[in-house]
């Protein structure tokens, strides 16, 4: 889900990116409180004042990480579903394709095990300020909204046989991706996340039946 813009980053930008990448991995593996500014500067080989040139403090680093993560996920998901639209005229096929790719993107992580920064932060929310919590909220709200719109389009074309709570159905994908990540992380054997996304796709196919030709 990274942007491949052709632009040579300055040395300062590269250091900043490197700091953020290292911090992201540390926070996903041991949490925010256990991640120290000292270890980050040691690993990047910069000075403390170098760190503070890029970030006001640790909280600021946390916010910028979340902001970057949100932007990457928003851009990535938008791209995924646009690509799915180009491949399929049928909104159901496009949704199924998009969900499949979303699952793959979610499993692709800078750490060995998949993980989500928003989830990690949600379990340490008391350490943050309101702005940080709003960023966590915003990232998840975007995913839910995007999926909800897609589901509405599909439901308009193939009305489900039974009443379906589309908002809950949209949340269900976000939930099983989050829950699948948790299980994969705990079991340390990948595959649960993908299996959950596959199971979700089977659910969509069962709900939205195409009239048989």
């Amino acid at each position, binding site marked *: 889900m990274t942007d491949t813009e052709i632009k040579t980053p300055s040395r300062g930008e590269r250091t900043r990116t490197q700091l953020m990448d290292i911090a992201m991995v540390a926070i*996903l*593996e*041991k*949490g*925010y*409180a*256990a991640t120290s500014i000292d270890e980050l500067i040691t690993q990047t080989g910069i000075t403390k004042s170098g760190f503070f040139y890029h970030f006001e403090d640790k909280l600021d680093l946390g916010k910028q990480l979340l902001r970057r993560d949100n932007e990457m996920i928003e851009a990535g998901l938008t791209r995924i579903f646009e690509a799915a639209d180009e491949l399929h005229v049928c909104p159901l096929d496009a949704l199924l394709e998009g969900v499949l790719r979303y699952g793959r993107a979610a499993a692709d992580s800078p750490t060995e095990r998949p*993980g989500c920064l*928003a*989830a*990690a932060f*949600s*379990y*340490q*929310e*008391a*350490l943050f300020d309101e702005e940080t919590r709003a960023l*966590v*909220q915003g990232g*998840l*709200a975007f995913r*839910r909204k995007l999926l909800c719109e897609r589901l509405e389009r599909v439901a308009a074309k193939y009305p489900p*046989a*039974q009443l*379906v*709570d589309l908002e*809950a*159905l949209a*949340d*269900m994908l*976000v*939930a*099983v*991706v*989050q*829950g*699948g990540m*948790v*299980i994969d*992380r*705990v*079991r*340390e054997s990948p595959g*649960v996340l993908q*299996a*959950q996304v*596959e*199971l979700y796709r*089977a*659910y969509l*196919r*069962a*709900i939205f*039946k195409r009239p048989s030709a």
Partner: protein
Amino acid sequence: MTAVAPTLSKGEQTRERLLDIAQHAVLHKGFAGTSLDEIIVEAGITKSGFFYHFKDKNDLAKGLLQRYLDRETLLFDRLFKQADELSEDPLHSFLIFLKLFADMMGDIPNGHPGCLVASYCYQDFLFSQDVRNLNEEGLRLWRARFRERLELIAQRYPPRIEVDFDALADMVSAVADGGIILSRSLRDPTLLPRQILQYRAYVKLVFLGN
């Protein structure tokens, strides 16, 4: 979630209290963000009193997780028992169980306090291997437990759509953990029970069709 039996000794009561305080702190600030000192101060005991119950912080982490898993097991035992008493049919009993589970999650004031399994997985480099093993064991047991139910159902109700039973069993944990994360982050306690009901609708669709 379960009432503590009134027969606990004073020492056991202190231990429970320490665990309650620690659990609340860990679920909101994480493990590294929680200090032993703050737990000791809040419990109003001495440092040596604390170390009488827990060897160190890792031992506390293990004690917390063990108690959490035991309580979940008891809760599921109780809900399954209630459901089995209401229906002998394996599908209906499972659907009743899920409804009871959703209702119970919806009744928690201010929403679910958080799942230690999920909380631990985002900081488990801090823990010893036996804590990680305990967490893994918990999820393995839940999969086995739900899978057993699903297989019983399938004997009477052949699935209408092809699904992987391990995945369908894992989905209980996935929607619960994912639902808790959504509820916490979006600050809407109703999201968790709604996810459990959504899973219930899926199970119905698998075994009964549209």
